[in-house]
């Protein structure tokens, strides 16, 4: 009996995948296909390793999957859940290449019962704040047009500082960013945020206050849903922006702040003007300033011309009046003038000194005198 071999066997020259290559390719495929997602299930066999990592199985009636919670996230998760605890886990699926196993890498684990309590507390805080009018749109303040000093309440070590600084430096480099550091999640976050917001009110010359976080998981909004933090935010004396970081989940600080931004970068864009826009405004103001003066000078010149015309007209009128004032008495004088009488054919006799001779006694014989007629004098002698 001969052994029959299947056709199309690979030859050594053909490309054949290694196990590692295939595992890696599948890993890339899985890693690139999922954003963090919530999964609900029942915890089984949760083991805490000496490294601090947790490993457990999550299952429901039909399936199960291996889960891993790294040390840093495990530290925030409290006590390991007992077998049978129903939980929500947030995380991403991945492939553990060494064993070729599918795993779910958990970032956050919340017992469903605990979540119920959180939800109740959130609803209570929301109602209390709403009843006190803290969500009222009429109390929203407008941001100043050219904010130069920003107060940023966030974690000193978080990405929010870098993001706000980067955007602000690009848009409005003459600004000043004051970072008031506070924990934004975990123990002490509420107290820290309240303290930081209170401190903002003691700082001089603040134009806008941004409260936010960057780069954290979307699941941990507890501090930003705290009633105390919201009340402290409402008490900030300058306009506020809440930038907690996600479009989908709205925190209570988003509702209390004067503005909400999806990210700290977006908050910085809202808070400060763009230098290029301001330079354009300055150019525009420069043109308007020059044309304003030109226009004003033209108005003054026109007014001056009008004033000149009026002055000229006034002078002319005054001269006319003066001429009339002079001409009237002159005519009256002329009418009374003895010369007018002479014009009618009379003559006036005067001695050589100009005295008028009125009587016969004024004319002794041989007296030489003058006769004034209308157009001159005539010398005469009495005979």
């Amino acid at each position: 009996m001969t052994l029959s071999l299947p056709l199309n066997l690979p030859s050594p020259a053909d490309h054949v995948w290694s196990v590692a290559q295939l595992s890696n390719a599948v890993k890339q495929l899985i890693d690139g296909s999922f954003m963090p997602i919530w999964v609900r299930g029942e915890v089984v066999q949760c083991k805490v390793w000496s490294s601090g990592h947790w490993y457990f199985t999550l299952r429901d009636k039909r399936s199960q999957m291996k889960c891993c919670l790294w040390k840093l996230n495990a530290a925030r998760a409290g006590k390991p859940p007992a077998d049978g605890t129903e939980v929500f886990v947030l995380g991403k699926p991945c492939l553990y290449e060494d064993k070729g196993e599918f795993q779910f890498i958990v970032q956050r684990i919340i017992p469903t019962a605990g979540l119920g309590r959180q939800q109740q507390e959130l609803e209570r805080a929301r109602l209390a704040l709403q009843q006190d009018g803290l969500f009222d749109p009429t109390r929203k303040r407008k941001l100043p047009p050219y904010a130069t000093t920003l107060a940023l309440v966030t974690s000193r070590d978080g990405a929010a500082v870098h993001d706000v600084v980067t955007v602000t430096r690009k848009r409005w480099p003459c600004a000043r960013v004051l970072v008031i550091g506070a924990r934004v999640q975990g123990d002490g976050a509420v107290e820290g945020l309240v303290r930081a917001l209170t401190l903002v009110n003691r700082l001089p010359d603040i134009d806008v206050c941004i409260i936010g976080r960057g780069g954290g998981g979307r699941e941990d909004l507890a501090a930003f849903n705290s009633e105390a933090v919201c009340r402290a935010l409402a008490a900030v004396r300058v306009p506020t922006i809440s930038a907690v970081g996600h479009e989908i989940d709205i925190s209570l600080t988003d509702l209390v702040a004067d503005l909400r931004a999806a990210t700290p970068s977006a908050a910085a864009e809202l808070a400060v003007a763009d230098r290029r826009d301001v330079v354009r405004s300055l150019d525009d103001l420069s043109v308007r300033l020059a044309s304003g003066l030109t226009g004003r000078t033209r108005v003054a010149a026109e007014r001056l011309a009008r004033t000149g015309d009026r002055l000229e007209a006034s002078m002319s009128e005054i001269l006319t009046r003066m001429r009339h004032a002079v001409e009237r008495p002159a005519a009256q004088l002329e009418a009374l003038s003895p010369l007018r009488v002479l014009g009618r054919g009379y003559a006036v006799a005067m001695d050589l000194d100009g005295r008028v001779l009125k009587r016969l006694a004024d004319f002794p014989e041989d007296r030489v005198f003058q006769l004034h007629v209308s157009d001159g004098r005539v010398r005469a002698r009495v005979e």
Partner: protein
Amino acid sequence: MSQPESKSPSPRLADELARLEEIVRKLEADDVELDAALALFEEGVARLRAARERLADAELKVQAVLEQAGGDIRFTKLDG
């Protein structure tokens, strides 16, 4: 590096720009006397120059705010 709390010595840019807007509006209205218009123009030019220099020379200042035990506030330079 620590430095004490200090007030900004120069007028705030917002005030500068608001004053510039006001100057231009006054100049654009016809009811200002010529002498006053010239004075406004000179002030406007000076403020424009100052604003441009301010924008050109500006370097972002990033500081951490720290509350001391006694309640005093300190500003510490941060590398942003």
